[in-house]
C-alpha cells in the first residue's frame, strides 16, 4: 500500500504536485519510488529554465533503470533540491518531504485543474 497524501495533486507519470499560490513543488510519489527501488542518481533542471507541461526536465536513476521526470505544469524553474542530488536515497525515504525535486513558478495556473486528484491517482495505482 503506497502513501498518497490527500493535500497533493498527481500526474499519470507518478509525479506529485504541491501548489502554493503561484508556485508548485514537484517530486515523485511513494508508489514511484517503490517501483524504482534504490535511487542512486537524480539530475534536476537549472533554475531559470522555462518548461512546458509534459516536457522532460529531470532524470531519476535506480541501479537497474533510468526514468524521465516530466514537468507537470508550465512555467519557470525557480529552484532545484540540492539535497536530493547529493543524497538521491532521500527520494526513497522521504518522497513527499526532503526528497522533493524542483519548484516551478507557474505561467498558466489553470493547468492545475488538469492534474489528478488523490482519489484518481489512487485508482490508477490500485492503492
Amino acid at each position, binding site marked *: 500500500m503506497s502513501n498518497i497524501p490527500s493535500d497533493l495533486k498527481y500526474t499519470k507519470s507518478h509525479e506529485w504536485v504541491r501548489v502554493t499560490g503561484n508556485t508548485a513543488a514537484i517530486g515523485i510519489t511513494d508508489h514511484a519510488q517503490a517501483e524504482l527501488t534504490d535511487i542512486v542518481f537524480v539530475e534536476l533542471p537549472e533554475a531559470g529554465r522555462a518548461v512546458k507541461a509534459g516536457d522532460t526536465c529531470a532524470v531519476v*536513476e535506480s541501479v537497474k533503470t533510468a526514468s524521465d521526470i516530466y514537468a507537470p505544469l508550465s512555467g519557470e524553474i525557480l529552484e532545484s533540491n540540492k539535497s536530493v542530488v547529493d543524497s538521491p536515497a532521500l527520494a526513497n525515504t522521504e518522497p513527499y518531504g526532503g526528497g522533493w525535486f524542483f519548484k516551478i513558478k507557474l505561467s498558466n495556473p489553470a493547468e492545475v485543474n488538469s492534474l489528478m486528484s488523490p482519489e484518481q491517482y489512487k485508482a490508477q495505482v490500485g492503492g
Partner: protein
Amino acid sequence: MLKRTALFSAHQKQGARLIDFGGWEMPVQYSGLMAEHLAVRKAAGIFDISHMGEVTVSGPGAEAFLNWVLTNDIRKLVPGEGQYTLMCNERGGVVDDLYAYKLSAEVYLLIINASRTAADTAWMTALWEEFPRRDEVNLHDTSHNYSAVAVQGPKVKDFIADCFPNVSCAAMRVERVTDLKKNQIAEFHFENGGVLISRTGYTGEDGFEIVGEDGMIRHVWKKILEKGEPFGIKACGLGARDTLRTEVCYPLYGHELDEETTPMEAGLGFFVSLDKGEFIGRKVLAEQKAHGTKKKLVAFKMADKSAPPRAHYPIWAGGKAVGVVTSGTQSPSLGAGIGMGYVPPEVAKQHPIEIEIRGKHFPAVIVPKPIYRKSP
C-alpha cells in the same frame, strides 16, 4: 506465454517482482536489489537459476566430440570436475559460454545460457552430424528435466552441510559437501532422491550451484532458506545477479559475448586451449593470439559522480567515439559507476576515457579486472 520455473509460486509468495528474461518469467528482485547484492557480499543469497539449460553428452566418443566443439581442454577433467569453457563458430565468434562437468568416464553435463539453449543445441547437433565418431556420442537437451539454484556468499559454507548432511554418492567422492573444491561437482542424497552440487557461481563469492528435478529443487529452496536464515540469507533476483557479476567482470552472453565477438577479444584466452589439437574456431583464435585483436574488453570506473553508465552508451577517447559500453551499473559494493565495454587495443592501454551519458561526457578510468575483489 512466458515459461515459469518450478519455483514460480515460491517467488510469488515471497513478493518477488517478476520480469521477462529470455522468455522466462523470472524474479528481478525480492526485498530490494541493493540489500540482496550486499547480502551476497557479506552473508548469503539464494538465486533461482532454473532457466539455465542442461545438455548431457555421453558415450565413448563424448570426450573427443567436446574437445572439438569447445575451446577449453576437456581432457584436463577427472570425474567430479568442471571447467568454464566456450563454444565458438568457425569465425571464432562465441556461440555460448558455459560450464562443462565430467560426471563419470563417459558422461558430461553442460550448463548453458537460457537464452542460448536453442542456438546451442542446433549448433551442437549440426556438428554432431559432421563428427566421424557420431555413433559413439549421445547428445541430449535435458533442460526440461532440471531445475537449479545458486547459493552464494561467504557464510554459505557455515550452513550448507546442514542442508546436505551426507557423503557424496557419485562424481567427486567427498565426506561433506563443504569438502568440494572450486569447480568440483558431486551427487548427494537429498530426501528420497539425489541432487548434483558444484562449488561454482556467478557472483565472485564462494558458493554452490545445485541441480535436480523440479520437486527436489522446490524442497532445496525451502531448506536452504530455513538453514540459512540465522546467517542472514536473502532470496535474490536477477537484478542482484547482474550487479554482482558486473563487479567481478564475468561476461554475460548478449552483452560482452556474441557470435561476432571472440574469446580473445573478451579477455577469455585463458579458457582457450590452442595446443590441444583441432577445434572449431581454432584458426581465427590462434591468429588473434599471435597478432592481437581489433577490439578489447576493458573494465572501467567512473572518475567523478555521474549517472550510472549503462549498456549501449558510447565510450570516447581522444575526442573520438571509440567503443560502446556492454554492461554498466552503479556498483552497490563500491558506491560508484562501473562497467565494461569494447575499445581498440591502443585505447585499452591508455587509461583515461569518457562515457557519454545523455549527450554529456563524463570521465572514467580503465581499471584491472575484476573491478571488485572480495576481502580475503
